[in-house]
Protein backbone atom coordinates (compact mmCIF):
# COMPACT_ATOMS: atom_id res chain seq x y z
CA UNK A 1 0.00 0.00 0.00
CA UNK A 2 3.01 2.29 0.48
CA UNK A 3 3.38 3.06 -3.23
CA UNK A 4 -0.35 3.75 -3.62
CA UNK A 5 -0.31 6.35 -0.85
CA UNK A 6 2.75 8.00 -2.37
CA UNK A 7 1.10 8.08 -5.80
CA UNK A 8 -2.04 9.73 -4.36
CA UNK A 9 0.19 12.31 -2.68
CA UNK A 10 2.11 12.91 -5.91
CA UNK A 11 -1.14 13.30 -7.86
CA UNK A 12 -2.52 15.83 -5.37
CA UNK A 13 0.75 17.78 -5.41
CA UNK A 14 0.98 17.81 -9.22
CA UNK A 15 -2.67 18.84 -9.67
CA UNK A 16 -2.16 21.64 -7.15
CA UNK A 17 1.02 22.85 -8.86
CA UNK A 18 -0.70 22.83 -12.26
CA UNK A 19 -3.60 24.79 -10.77
CA UNK A 20 -1.24 27.41 -9.38
CA UNK A 21 0.30 27.85 -12.81
CA UNK A 22 -2.72 27.81 -15.12
CA UNK A 23 -5.55 29.55 -13.26
CA UNK A 24 -6.12 33.30 -13.54
CA UNK A 25 -8.38 33.76 -10.53
CA UNK A 26 -6.28 34.59 -7.45
CA UNK A 27 -8.60 32.83 -4.99
CA UNK A 28 -8.37 29.59 -6.96
CA UNK A 29 -4.58 29.93 -6.99
CA UNK A 30 -4.72 30.09 -3.18
CA UNK A 31 -6.92 26.98 -3.08
CA UNK A 32 -4.49 25.11 -5.33
CA UNK A 33 -1.70 26.05 -2.92
CA UNK A 34 -3.70 24.40 -0.14
CA UNK A 35 -3.99 21.28 -2.29
CA UNK A 36 -0.20 21.21 -2.72
CA UNK A 37 0.30 21.49 1.05
CA UNK A 38 -2.17 18.64 1.55
CA UNK A 39 -0.27 16.48 -0.91
CA UNK A 40 2.90 17.05 1.08
CA UNK A 41 0.91 16.28 4.25
CA UNK A 42 -0.22 12.89 2.94
CA UNK A 43 3.41 12.04 2.25
CA UNK A 44 4.40 13.07 5.80
CA UNK A 45 1.70 10.95 7.43
CA UNK A 46 2.48 7.97 5.17
CA UNK A 47 6.13 8.12 6.18
CA UNK A 48 5.12 8.48 9.82
CA UNK A 49 3.07 5.27 9.59
CA UNK A 50 5.54 3.18 7.62
CA UNK A 51 8.61 4.24 9.59
CA UNK A 52 6.88 3.94 12.97
CA UNK A 53 7.75 7.47 14.07
CA UNK A 54 5.22 10.06 15.22
CA UNK A 55 7.41 13.02 14.16
CA UNK A 56 5.75 13.16 10.74
CA UNK A 57 2.43 13.95 12.38
CA UNK A 58 4.06 16.81 14.33
CA UNK A 59 5.42 18.15 11.04
CA UNK A 60 1.90 18.09 9.66
CA UNK A 61 0.71 20.24 12.57
CA UNK A 62 3.39 22.80 11.66
CA UNK A 63 2.41 22.63 7.98
CA UNK A 64 -1.23 23.28 8.91
CA UNK A 65 -0.26 26.32 10.99
CA UNK A 66 1.86 27.72 8.14
CA UNK A 67 -1.00 27.05 5.69
CA UNK A 68 -3.45 28.96 7.89
CA UNK A 69 -1.17 32.01 8.20
CA UNK A 70 -0.37 31.94 4.48
CA UNK A 71 -4.09 31.89 3.63
CA UNK A 72 -4.77 34.81 5.99
CA UNK A 73 -2.09 36.99 4.40
CA UNK A 74 -3.04 35.89 0.86
CA UNK A 75 -6.69 36.75 1.40
CA UNK A 76 -5.70 40.13 2.85
CA UNK A 77 -3.76 40.84 -0.36
CA UNK A 78 -6.77 39.67 -2.41
CA UNK A 79 -9.12 42.06 -0.56
CA UNK A 80 -6.65 44.92 -0.98
CA UNK A 81 -6.32 44.34 -4.72
CA UNK A 82 -10.10 43.97 -5.07
CA UNK A 83 -10.61 47.35 -3.38
CA UNK A 84 -8.04 49.02 -5.64
CA UNK A 85 -8.73 47.34 -9.00
CA UNK A 86 -12.13 45.55 -8.74
CA UNK A 87 -10.49 42.46 -10.16
CA UNK A 88 -9.00 39.17 -9.02
CA UNK A 89 -7.14 38.43 -12.24
CA UNK A 90 -3.56 37.32 -11.61
CA UNK A 91 -2.31 39.44 -14.52
CA UNK A 92 -3.59 42.62 -12.82
CA UNK A 93 -1.54 41.70 -9.77
CA UNK A 94 1.66 42.69 -11.55
CA UNK A 95 0.87 46.19 -10.21
CA UNK A 96 2.26 44.90 -6.89
CA UNK A 97 5.72 44.96 -8.46
CA UNK A 98 5.86 48.76 -8.70
Amino acid at each position, binding site marked *: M*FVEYMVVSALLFAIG*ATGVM*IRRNFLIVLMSLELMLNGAGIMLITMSYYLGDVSGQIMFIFVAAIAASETAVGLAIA*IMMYKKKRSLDINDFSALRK
Partner: protein
Amino acid sequence: MAELIFFVLSLATIVGALGTVISKNAYASALWMITSFIGVSGLFVMLNAPFIAMLQIIVYAGAIAVLILFVMMLMDRRVLEDKERFNPQYLWAIAFGLGLLADITVLAFKFRINLSHIGENLTLNGSNTKMVGDILFKRYLFPFELIAIVLLVALVGAIVLTKKDKKEVE
Protein backbone atom coordinates in the same frame (compact mmCIF):
# COMPACT_ATOMS: atom_id res chain seq x y z
CA MET B 1 -11.93 -4.16 2.33
CA ALA B 2 -9.13 -1.75 3.20
CA GLU B 3 -8.27 -1.48 -0.49
CA LEU B 4 -11.87 -0.59 -1.35
CA ILE B 5 -12.01 2.14 1.31
CA PHE B 6 -8.64 3.45 0.15
CA PHE B 7 -9.86 3.53 -3.45
CA VAL B 8 -13.04 5.46 -2.58
CA LEU B 9 -11.17 7.97 -0.40
CA SER B 10 -8.41 8.60 -2.90
CA LEU B 11 -11.00 8.93 -5.67
CA ALA B 12 -12.75 11.65 -3.61
CA THR B 13 -9.40 13.35 -3.05
CA ILE B 14 -8.28 13.34 -6.68
CA VAL B 15 -11.68 14.23 -8.17
CA GLY B 16 -11.99 17.05 -5.64
CA ALA B 17 -8.56 18.37 -6.59
CA LEU B 18 -9.35 18.21 -10.32
CA GLY B 19 -12.68 19.94 -9.71
CA THR B 20 -10.91 22.71 -7.80
CA VAL B 21 -8.54 23.38 -10.65
CA ILE B 22 -11.03 23.02 -13.51
CA SER B 23 -14.36 24.47 -12.38
CA LYS B 24 -15.37 27.82 -13.79
CA ASN B 25 -16.95 29.32 -10.70
CA ALA B 26 -14.87 30.04 -7.60
CA TYR B 27 -17.69 28.89 -5.30
CA ALA B 28 -17.79 25.48 -6.98
CA SER B 29 -14.02 25.39 -6.68
CA ALA B 30 -14.19 25.94 -2.92
CA LEU B 31 -16.77 23.17 -2.50
CA TRP B 32 -14.65 20.74 -4.52
CA MET B 33 -11.70 21.70 -2.33
CA ILE B 34 -13.69 20.74 0.78
CA THR B 35 -14.48 17.35 -0.82
CA SER B 36 -10.79 16.83 -1.40
CA PHE B 37 -9.91 17.78 2.19
CA ILE B 38 -12.43 15.33 3.63
CA GLY B 39 -11.01 12.56 1.44
CA VAL B 40 -7.51 13.36 2.70
CA SER B 41 -8.81 13.24 6.26
CA GLY B 42 -10.18 9.74 5.64
CA LEU B 43 -6.76 8.68 4.32
CA PHE B 44 -5.22 9.95 7.58
CA VAL B 45 -7.62 7.78 9.59
CA MET B 46 -6.49 4.78 7.53
CA LEU B 47 -2.86 5.62 8.38
CA ASN B 48 -3.49 5.39 12.15
CA ALA B 49 -3.48 9.17 12.68
CA PRO B 50 -6.96 10.01 14.05
CA PHE B 51 -5.82 13.20 15.79
CA ILE B 52 -4.35 14.58 12.57
CA ALA B 53 -7.52 13.60 10.70
CA MET B 54 -9.61 15.69 13.10
CA LEU B 55 -7.10 18.54 12.79
CA GLN B 56 -7.41 18.31 9.01
CA ILE B 57 -11.20 18.68 9.16
CA ILE B 58 -11.12 21.49 11.74
CA VAL B 59 -8.28 23.55 10.27
CA TYR B 60 -8.61 22.96 6.52
CA ALA B 61 -12.27 22.11 5.85
CA GLY B 62 -13.36 24.33 8.74
CA ALA B 63 -11.17 27.37 9.14
CA ILE B 64 -9.42 27.84 5.78
CA ALA B 65 -12.37 26.93 3.52
CA VAL B 66 -14.77 29.10 5.54
CA LEU B 67 -12.27 31.98 5.43
CA ILE B 68 -12.06 31.73 1.64
CA LEU B 69 -15.86 31.48 1.32
CA PHE B 70 -16.34 34.53 3.55
CA VAL B 71 -13.95 36.57 1.39
CA MET B 72 -15.91 35.48 -1.70
CA MET B 73 -19.09 36.64 -0.01
CA LEU B 74 -17.64 40.16 0.20
CA MET B 75 -16.87 40.32 -3.52
CA ASP B 76 -18.85 40.92 -6.68
CA ARG B 77 -20.20 37.77 -8.29
CA ARG B 78 -18.91 38.81 -11.73
CA VAL B 79 -15.35 38.95 -10.42
CA LEU B 80 -15.52 35.33 -9.29
CA GLU B 81 -16.70 33.89 -12.62
CA ASP B 82 -13.94 34.57 -15.09
CA LYS B 83 -14.45 34.38 -18.82
CA GLU B 84 -10.91 33.22 -19.40
CA ARG B 85 -10.10 30.52 -16.92
CA PHE B 86 -6.57 29.67 -17.97
CA ASN B 87 -3.41 31.58 -18.66
CA PRO B 88 -2.23 31.60 -22.28
CA GLN B 89 0.77 29.44 -21.39
CA TYR B 90 -1.42 26.64 -20.01
CA LEU B 91 0.09 23.92 -22.20
CA TRP B 92 3.52 24.51 -20.67
CA ALA B 93 1.98 24.45 -17.20
CA ILE B 94 0.23 21.12 -17.88
CA ALA B 95 3.46 19.67 -19.27
CA PHE B 96 5.30 20.82 -16.16
CA GLY B 97 2.63 19.29 -13.91
CA LEU B 98 2.79 15.96 -15.72
CA GLY B 99 6.59 15.99 -15.47
CA LEU B 100 6.36 16.63 -11.73
CA LEU B 101 3.87 13.78 -11.38
CA ALA B 102 6.10 11.35 -13.33
CA ASP B 103 9.10 12.43 -11.29
CA ILE B 104 7.51 11.87 -7.88
CA THR B 105 5.87 8.61 -9.01
CA VAL B 106 9.19 7.16 -10.21
CA LEU B 107 10.73 8.20 -6.88
CA ALA B 108 7.87 6.51 -4.99
CA PHE B 109 8.42 3.24 -6.87
CA LYS B 110 12.18 3.33 -6.43
CA PHE B 111 12.11 4.37 -2.78
CA ARG B 112 13.00 1.55 -0.38
CA ILE B 113 12.41 1.99 3.33
CA ASN B 114 12.80 -0.28 6.31
CA LEU B 115 9.31 -1.74 6.75
CA SER B 116 9.96 -3.54 10.04
CA HIS B 117 8.32 -0.83 12.17
CA ILE B 118 4.97 -0.42 10.36
CA GLY B 119 2.40 1.17 12.65
CA GLU B 120 4.61 1.08 15.74
CA ASN B 121 5.33 3.91 18.18
CA LEU B 122 2.21 5.80 17.13
CA THR B 123 0.32 5.44 20.41
CA LEU B 124 1.03 6.10 24.08
CA ASN B 125 -1.21 4.19 26.51
CA GLY B 126 -3.37 3.28 23.51
CA SER B 127 -3.95 6.89 22.46
CA ASN B 128 -2.50 8.62 19.41
CA THR B 129 -3.37 12.08 20.78
CA LYS B 130 -1.34 11.44 23.94
CA MET B 131 1.66 10.41 21.86
CA VAL B 132 1.42 13.51 19.65
CA GLY B 133 1.15 15.76 22.70
CA ASP B 134 4.06 14.03 24.41
CA ILE B 135 6.41 14.46 21.45
CA LEU B 136 5.14 17.95 20.56
CA PHE B 137 5.69 19.43 24.02
CA LYS B 138 8.93 17.63 24.79
CA ARG B 139 11.03 17.19 21.67
CA TYR B 140 9.51 19.92 19.48
CA LEU B 141 8.78 22.63 22.04
CA PHE B 142 10.98 25.30 20.44
CA PRO B 143 9.51 24.96 16.89
CA PHE B 144 6.08 25.04 18.50
CA GLU B 145 6.82 28.43 20.07
CA LEU B 146 8.22 29.67 16.75
CA ILE B 147 4.97 28.67 15.02
CA ALA B 148 3.09 30.79 17.57
CA ILE B 149 5.21 33.81 16.56
CA VAL B 150 4.59 33.08 12.84
CA LEU B 151 0.84 33.02 13.46
CA LEU B 152 1.04 36.33 15.35
CA VAL B 153 2.98 37.95 12.52
CA ALA B 154 0.44 36.67 9.96
CA LEU B 155 -2.40 38.08 12.07
CA VAL B 156 -0.79 41.52 12.32
CA GLY B 157 0.11 41.45 8.62
CA ALA B 158 -3.45 40.64 7.56
CA ILE B 159 -4.84 43.49 9.70
CA VAL B 160 -2.29 45.99 8.43
CA LEU B 161 -2.92 45.04 4.78
CA THR B 162 -6.71 45.37 4.98
CA LYS B 163 -7.10 48.43 7.20
CA LYS B 164 -8.25 51.65 5.60
CA ASP B 165 -5.79 54.43 4.81
CA LYS B 166 -6.20 57.73 6.66
CA LYS B 167 -7.18 59.46 3.42
CA GLU B 168 -10.02 57.01 2.79
CA VAL B 169 -11.44 57.53 6.28
CA GLU B 170 -11.56 61.31 5.94
